[in-house]
Structure formats: structure tokens, C-alpha cells
């Protein structure tokens, strides 16, 4: 799996990210780092614990990372979730969560596939 195929699989825009970051090496490095970021787990646990402020920051961070990496699909769903949490609309947030979950899992799966294809 190439990095372009990985972007296609996770619903991202490879042309956009390479246009901004200018280096395939950098894009690859940050894509591989993405699953290690703790924000997603923090988002889930904060929502569970009812710590909406923390959940907002976590969602916001996910959105920011996705925007930097042009993970368009996840950027969109996490952005909607961020705005819901910013307004303190917990109900809406919980309604938006499954989409974020689906997109996040699709993203990490694609990255795992890409990682597996990298010769050691």
C-alpha cells in the first residue's frame, strides 16, 4: 500500500497535504505518528466521565491534527463534534460520536495497512 492509497482509503486529500508540507518523508512520518496520539482515547473517556471541557479540547486537537494532515473525512466529523462540545450541546455531541468513531477507525486501519506494507 502506498501513501497515496492509504490517503484514498482513509478519505484524505494527499495532494493537499503534500502541497502544504512539501515533503513526502514528513507526511509519512506524521501519518504514522497519528495513531499514537492519545487525544482520541481522552475524548472517549472524558465523554464517558461527563468531563465535557476535556472532551472539547480532545476533539479540538483531533480536528487540528486532521486538518494538518488533510484527513478530510475525520477532520469534518471531529470538527462537527468540536463545535457541539463548544456550545455545550452534549446530546448533539453524543449523536455525532459514532461517525467520529467510524472515521477514526477507518483512518487507523488504513494507516496500519500502510505501515504493514513498509519494508523493514
Amino acid at each position, binding site marked *: 500500500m502506498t501513501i497515496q492509497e492509504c490517503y484514498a482509503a482513509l478519505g484524505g486529500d494527499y495532494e*493537499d497535504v503534500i*502541497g*502544504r*508540507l*512539501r*515533503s513526502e518523508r*514528513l507526511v509519512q*512520518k*506524521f501519518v504514522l*505518528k*497519528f495513531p499514537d*496520539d492519545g*487525544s482520541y482515547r481522552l475524548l472517549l473517556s472524558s465523554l464517558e466521565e461527563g468531563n465535557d471541557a*476535556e472532551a*472539547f*479540547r480532545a476533539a*479540538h*486537537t483531533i*480536528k*487540528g*491534527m486532521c*486538518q*494538518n*494532515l*488533510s484527513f478530510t473525512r475525520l477532520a469534518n466529523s471531529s470538527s462537527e463534534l468540536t463545535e457541539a462540545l463548544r456550545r455545550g450541546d452534549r446530546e448533539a455531541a453524543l449523536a455525532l460520536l459514532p461517525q467520529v468513531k467510524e472515521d477514526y477507525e477507518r483512518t487507523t486501519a488504513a494507516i496500519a495497512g500502510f505501515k504493514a506494507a513498509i519494508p523493514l
Partner: protein
Amino acid sequence: MAESRHPRKERILIVDDSEMNRSILADMLADEFDVEEAEDGEVAIKLLKEGGDYSLVLLDIVMPKMNGFDVLTEMSRTRMIEDLPVIMVSAETASDQIERAYSLGATDFIMRPFDASIVHRRVVNTILLYAKQKKLLGIIEEQLKEKEQSSSLMVDILSHIVEFRNGESGLHIRHVRTITEFLLKKLVKKTTKYPLTEAEISTISMASALHDIGKIAIDDKILNKPGKLTDEEFAVMKTHSLIGAQMLEALSNHREDPLVRCAYEICRWHHERYDGRGYPDGLKGDAIPISAQIVALADVYDALTSERVYKPPFSPEQAKEMILTGKCGVFNPILLECLKDEFTDIRDALMTDPGERSSRREVRSFADAVLHSKSTVSDRTLKLLDYERMKFNFYAELTEEIQFEYIVGEDLLKLSPWGAKKLGVNQEIVDPAHNAKLCEQLGANWFRGLNGFFAQTSAEHPEFRHECILRIGGEERWYSVIMHSIWTDDEPPRIGSVIGKLVDIHDVHTRITELRESSIRDPLTGLLNRSGASEEIAKKLSNFPAKQYAFAVFDIDNFKNANDIYGHLFGDRVLCEVSERILHNTRAGDVCARIGGDEFLVVFEYNVDIHPIIARIFRSVCGKVDDFDLTVSMGIAEMTEKGQSYNDIFRKADIALYVSKNAGRASYHFYDESMEETAVRPAESAGHGRMLSEIEDLDENERKGAKKE
């Protein structure tokens, strides 16, 4: 913290809670900057307060503990934001968020997702901008310092003008200032009643010098009257304090300047008394500004210890006693204590008269000049110009050059006085191209020469030097012509004028020509010498490479015998005779040279059979000189290929010469390659030439065969 490096990299602090976001930014900037990271606002503030010497902060907004706005607020509170630019990097797109960041002092706002090159550009620009700002601040500080120094100088000048009119020693101002400074410094230590800053103390001290400037308006006769003043005179004298104040008040542009405000107080109230019986306003106690109180005390002290037309000086101790006991004025008790405490220091300081004698002398002479000079500034400028003109004329006269200036716009030629005299024309000539006298002197085409210069000169290459023969004053002589065009500031620039000179270099030129001639000629025979010949021949070979040349080198046979038997004078005669004979039998374009003691060289161009030519030369050179039977041995080499060098042909002719010598002299031989081997053993060589005896009777046809033998 990174260790210091050379050159030091600017340090950037990246504040973002997402490690990945920090890492993306750090990767973009790490090549050019020292990058440090903080994972939230608290860490960032801690690092900033440790004084990490950062040049820039990249700041996220949404962060745990302390968000970006909190960081900005803290930076504003501690005024850190004034020197340290902050660029916000955020996914926030709401305009109120961006507005808030700017209003808290952020320099720039970069929206996520960002473009690597834009981040890089903005970071670099911001750092450069702040560096420039810091430099500008430095420049302004420097200028302020200079301004303070120059205002101190102006104060000195002004106060000395007053003093000279007063006929005082010139030390009074300096003394009052010194005393004022001592008393002020003591006063702020003694009490908190008069909270004066360091800057205010310095301002008061400086302003103290102006306390008597009102005296400039007082009539000389009263000011310098030797005896006691009448009541009316004293009344006039007393007006000086108010007049001084009014003068300062009239400086409407500067009325708010601390120095002027302070000088106003001092001028107006330095004759008030603490008990309210002074003038002009009769102020009492601390209604009198402390600055004026102190200057009043200093003024009295110095007046007592100085000699005046109406009194001898009192000793410092006497003066102190008179003041402390109220015999001379009434002062603030705390100031009297200051005087008591500082008395020894003040006395010693005035006695040693601290410093700046030289700068005071400058001030004094300047003040002197202003006071006594009757001439106005424009007179002075005219005088300077006059002086410069005299100097110029003097030098021009000495150098004996025809100096000129041609002003294009006015078609006007100006000549130096000496030049005009030399040419017998006026110093200023309008339309010089058609001036009959000038054309007669310089030749009708002289102006065309100037126009030629116009065509080739440019602002980059304004100068022109040329040597030529000019007929000036009926005599043809060598001149050096030097011209320099002066260009206007227009775009494109035009020639405004041409300056230049004609320098008579005839004597030098003649001498150089003579020296050159003598360096290439043999003084005895007048023929070229070896170096002259080689130069001349090399020139011929390179200028006319297509022509055919032959070199004939010859020695006088048994010349040593001629010298030995008949003497050196005779030897010289033989050499001259040979030279005569050569010249008679060669053409003007041929090169004839004496290249050694009795060795000669003839180089000639030919395009017919060479043999009759050589035979004729050979025969003509030989023949008796008195009793000496003059014969020569000759070697000839022809140029065999184009571009052959002088040295090569000469060497070959020389080899042929040796062949002739070894064949028993009185003969000539043409070079051929077979001589190369035998040249080192000349004795064995023979048969390629002709003995004089053999050719004596040969006709043309037979001579042709000589070479083939």
C-alpha cells in the same frame, strides 16, 4: 537550554498541547532555529520567565491548564509582549477569537491547516521586523543622548555669553553649577521632602547655568559699573530675573521641555528670599521652587568667594560663616545644613576647578566670536570663498598650466589667469568655438577636439588624457591635455561642464624621446644596438608577416689586430667606416645594427634573388681603411617559414657566420640544416660559402651558384 553557538541561532518557543502539532512545526523550523517546545500555557510561561532569550513564540489557543489567551494576558501583564513577538497557530476560525488574540498583543495569526512555506516566511519576517525595531530603539536612545549633550553645550554657550558681558571670570557659571549639584545630592539624602530623581538633579544643575541670562538685556553701563549702583540703576538691574524668565517663556515650542521649565523657575526666583523679602515676586519659604532656592544659595556663595569690582574675595570659610549667620541672605535651614555638611567638598572642588578646561575654552572662544564679530554669516562665507579663490590662483600661477572650465549651458569658456595670459585672450569667452584669437592659438579644429571628448566621455569614465603637439604662442610644443566632464543629477545625467588643463610637457617629452633613442642606439656609429635591433625586427616580423626577410650577421676579420697595431681610436674609425658602408648599401627600411664589439647585423626584406644583394653588401663592406685591409666574415639566414622568430633566424645566421670564420674568414655562407651538426665543431665545416678572393671577379650568374657548391 541549547549551548551558545556561533553564529547564534534565533530561539523559538512552540506552545501546543498536541505533541504531533508541535512536531510538525518543529520539523519545519529546526534547520534555521533553535526550537523549544512547551506542552501547555503553564510550561510556556515558566520557560519565558526563566528568560530563555526567545525571539518568537508560536502559540496554540486551545490547551489544558492555561490556554493561549491566558498566556497572552500574562505576557501583556508582565510587558513581555512588548519585546517578544507571538504568532498564534490555531484551527480557530471564528473571527472574534482571532480578534481577541490580536487585541491581547499577538503579532500574527496562522490558521490551521497551514502551509509549511508560509509558516516559515512569517516566522522569519516577524523575527526580522523585531530585530529592526530593537535596532531603531537603540538609534533613538543614542540620539537622545546626543541631544542632551548638545543642549548642555548650548546652555554653556548661552550662559558664557552673559558672563562675558558681565565681565566676570567665566568660572562663576561653572562654580554655581558645581555647588548646585553638591547641595542637591546632599538634599535628597538628608530628607524625603524634595523627592528629586537623578534626571531632575541633572536638569536643575544644567539649568543653573542659565540663572543670569536676563542680564543680556541690561545696559552695559549698569552691568559693568565699577562703583556702587544708584537706586534707579539697582532697580534696572533687578529686572534681569524677570526678563530671563520671560525670554524662556517666549520659547513657545519648548516651553514644556523640562530643562526650559526648570530654567524658568531658576531665572525668575533665584533672587527670592526664604523670609519673603526677595524679588521679583516676594515668594516665601517653600513657595520658592527648591531649584531656585539652591541656585540662589550657590550664587551667593560664589559671589562672596570671588573678586568683584566693588569688593575683594572672601575666603570660603568667611563666606560660609556669613551665609550661616544670615549676614548675607536668608535661606532654607535644611539647605544651610547641606552647605555645612558639604562645605569641605565644595571648597575643594571649586579650588581644583574640575575639568573640561579645553571644552570650556572652546565654548569661550565661540561665545567670544558671537559677541565680538561684527560680520554676518554671509560675509564670512564670502570671505571663505575669496580665500579659496586666492589659494586657487596662487597654485594655478605656480604650475604654469592653461586651466579651463567650459560651461555647456552657457557656452562659456573660463580660463585661469595664467592660461588667459599665455593664450593672449580674455579669461571668460562666450561662444569660444568662434573666437578668432582662440582658434588662431589652438588651431581652428580645437573645438572639434572638445566635441570629440563629449562624444566619448561618460559619467562612469569622466576623465580623458591625451598627449599632442599644439602650436601655442607661435611655437609647436608637446602638451598633455587632461579633461574631466562633470555630470548633472538629472536622469539620465547630462554634461554640465568640462574642466581641464593643458600642461606643457615639451621638455619632458623631448628628454624622454632622447633617452629612448639613446637606449636603442650605439653611441659610436649611430646604428641600432642589439636590443634596439631586436625590438625593431620583432615589430617588422609581426607587422608584415607575409614578407620575406634575410638576416646577415658579420664580424670584422682580425679587428683585434687593428686595435692592437693602430690603437683604439683607429678601431673606432674602422667601426664607423663599416657603419657608413652598410648604410650606403642598404635601403632606409632595412635594419642595420652594431650588435657587439665588431659584430654587425643587417636585416632586409627581399622579393628577388638574394645572392646578388648579399654579394653586393659583402663586397661593399670589404676594402682598405688606411693601411688596414678590412674584410669580414658573414653568415646569412633566410626566413624559411611564416611566423619564424627573430631568435631562430638570428641563431641560424650566427651558425653560418661561424662556418665562414672557420673557412678562413673573408667569406660568407648561407645557412643550411647540415650546419646544425657541424656548428658545434666549426673547424670541420667548409665549402658552403665563398672566399672574398673567389668572388672578386664573379659575374651575376656564377654568384648564383655559390650557394650550391
